[in-house]
């Protein structure tokens, strides 16, 4: 999937198209080339525009901090939708996770807090599972109701349990202990020196390595582990095969003796606890307290990241990294970095427009892309910065653009979102 999005950046217009030789056929090599291409692109953009914060180690670390909760929510969505249940209630489950992790962390320390977050999300998953799997309620409807309940429960419980505690109140918890974090010893300072020199490519690489090895939270490592575990369980075990078959064709799975309800139920429970873990990350790593409105729609973005990643863990990780990154550069240098991205968008649209016009002969789409490219370029040269309000919409606009260009190449599980009743199969 990301082959659709990222290849355009490399200097030649169509890098992965025809000459996909033996080297690029290997998925590891292809991913490697994509990452390398992205780094070269970002460092070129940094040198050209002078927006040095585009890929500083600080920005990378911040991107990580913002990507992990999105990735966890998306992973929750992945489990659910692979079993054929759409989960728009991820946001509500995440909210439940923020409250319960804060409550547990305040009383029993950060490790129990992490566990508590997963448990809080699990409760949300349980409600969604009972409603959608056993009662056959429409998945979107149940999700919307769950988001309303999640919000209400968190606010009600926060005012019930955090009011009167030192530093706590009806809308926020007392300050909590951060979840522990680790650094790879001995390489942080030399890399920082290298990063400060602002050399093309070398400094960028140093910054990225430093961002990935310094002050990494244990919860980030747990998340990475969960991604690998998900990939293994869902694609390499009999359990995973059955779970995915339930999402593709429940009637066929039933006829082969798979207990469809059980697998759907388990998948939704896993989904809830992963989303809740994402909530725990927000209270214990990204900040050190529970706050009202803390999730800020990350559950929805996680869902979008999962669709962006074509219902696969690798793609989901790339999607979350993209959203986390766009969010991070916006939060750090705000308008300046987003302004630099405008140039990138203009060039990308220019390439897409030319490709549509000359390679595929689509005049309308091509001209449209070229006009938007021209407007974006004009915006880049006419202004020095992008207003903060507009910079805030960057992750959402990125999602929409990516979906608009790639949605037709995505394939969701065949029975995703359909209510299945035992014995009423087609």
């Amino acid at each position, binding site marked *: 999937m990301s082959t659709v999005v990222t290849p355009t950046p490399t200097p030649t217009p169509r890098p992965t198209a025809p000459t996909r030789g033996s080297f690029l056929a290997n998925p590891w090599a292809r991913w490697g080339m994509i990452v390398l291409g992205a780094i070269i692109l970002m460092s070129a953009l940094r040198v050209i525009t002078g927006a040095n914060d585009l890929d500083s180690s600080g920005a990378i670390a911040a991107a990580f901090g913002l990507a992990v909760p999105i990735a966890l929510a998306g992973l929750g969505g992945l489990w659910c939708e692979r079993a054929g249940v759409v989960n*728009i209630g991820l946001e509500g489950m995440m909210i439940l996770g923020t409250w319960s992790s804060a409550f547990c962390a305040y009383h029993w320390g950060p490790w129990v807090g992490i566990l508590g977050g997963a448990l809080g999300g699990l409760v949300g998953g349980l409600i969604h599972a009972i409603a959608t799997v056993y009662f056959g309620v429409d998945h979107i409807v*149940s999700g919307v109701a769950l988001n309303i309940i999640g919000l*209400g429960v968190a606010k009600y419980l926060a005012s019930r349990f955090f009011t009167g505690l030192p530093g706590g109140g009806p809308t926020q918890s007392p300050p909590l202990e951060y979840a522990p974090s680790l650094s790879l010893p001995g390489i942080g300072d030399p890399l920082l020196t290298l990063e400060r020199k602002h050399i093309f490519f070398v400094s960028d690489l140093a910054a990225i390595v430093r961002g990935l090895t310094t002050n990494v939270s244990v919860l980030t490592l747990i998340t990475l582990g969960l991604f690998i575990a998900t990939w293994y369980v869902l694609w390499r075990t009999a359990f995973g095969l059955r779970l995915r078959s339930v999402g593709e064709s429940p009637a066929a799975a039933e006829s082969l003796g798979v207990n469809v309800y059980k697998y759907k139920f388990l998948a939704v429970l896993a989904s809830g606890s992963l989303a809740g873990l994402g909530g725990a990350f927000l209270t214990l790593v990204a900040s050190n307290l529970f706050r009202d409105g803390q999730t800020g729609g990350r559950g929805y973005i996680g869902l979008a990241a999962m669709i962006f990643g074509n219902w696969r863990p690798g793609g989901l990780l790339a999607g979350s990294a993209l959203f986390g990154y766009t969010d991070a550069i916006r939060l750090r240098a705000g308008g300046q970095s987003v302004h630099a991205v405008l140039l990138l968008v203009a060039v990308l649209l220019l390439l897409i427009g030319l490709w549509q016009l000359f390679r595929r002969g689509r005049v309308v789409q091509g001209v449209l892309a070229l006009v938007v490219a021209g407007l974006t370029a004009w915006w880049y040269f006419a202004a020095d910065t992008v207003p903060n309000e507009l910079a805030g919409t960057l992750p959402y606009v990125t*999602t*929409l653009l990516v979906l608009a260009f790639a949605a037709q190449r995505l394939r969701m599980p065949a029975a995703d979102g359909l209510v299945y009743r035992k014995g009423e199969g087609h």
Partner: protein
Amino acid sequence: MSNAKLRRALLSIAAPILALFVAFLLTSLVLMALGDPVKDVWITMLSKPKPRQITNIVNGAIVLYLSAIAVAVGFKMNLFNIGVDGQYRVGSFAAALFAGQAWLPGVLNILVAIVVAMVAGGFWASIAAYLKVKRGVSEVISTIMLNAIATGVVSWLLLKVAVRTAGSNAIGTKTIPESSQLEGWKLIPGASNRIYSLLLLAILVGLLYWFVLGKTRFGFDLRATGSSETAAVASGVKVKRMVMTSMIASGALAGLIGMPLLFGQDHSYGTTFQSGLGFAGIGIALLGRNHPVGIAFAALLWSYLDTQANGLQIRAGVAPELVYIIQGIILFAVVIAYEGTRRLDIRLEQQRVAGELAAQRAAVRDQEGAVA
């Protein structure tokens, strides 16, 4: 036949009542488990509202009704317009901006501003509609993204055009001229506040919704597409065009949500803007089963709960957000109950038909026996 109709009517009334009862029970259990005063909470929630509060309930319901109708248009077609919130924001802003300029006198200003709101809301929804029809993007995801984008774009535009209110930090669009402000009516005896004049708008929209969906060919096509897309295609409905039209219609109606507030209370777009009305609309449309009268009752109930919950903190020492839990449980209970009654209805129908067939067969056999 009338027997089946009666049964269906009874079942559809029984479902919401059952849902309310379940919500009452579950909420009480939650309160009891956490040691909160159950009795005080229900005394507060169920106490008779004062005339002033009744006015607030009706006013709240007017706004929620418009929101739910906008959602219901999409629902009838199996489209989930989660983006009502964003469309309503864009529409309100555009209308407030236009009306504030006072280019037109009095009532004419109001009417054109309402059209502006509909166009703006419809435009915002058309982006999602285009992405769905031409690019195959699920409207659920695109409208969620468009909600967030609407918030950013509108707050940026607001900074560009804002006027600062004297003596405060609040910013907003230019206040609409007094000749275009609607005072409202004193319909509730003993209340000092007034019902929004644009109650008329809500009634009109409800009538139009009932007429267009129930009595016109367009409405029939729309409902047909919602029930079975393949059947609709087979009978000559252009599904893509229907998706486009109904999504834009839903967005245009969403643009209306802010109008009673704009002309009857706020008189400008600014910090008083209420977000989240679109999500409440989803719940209300479901509760009212997409029926214009059902939605009216559901909106009144929703607004009643919202208003009564304001007293919870003072009178019961419980966070007023408890109302979200109650509303959420009602929503869950009602959709489960509707699903249950639908299945019960099908089962009873099957039993009836099976019984009649068996009787027929028995009669035929008796006849044959008599002949032999």
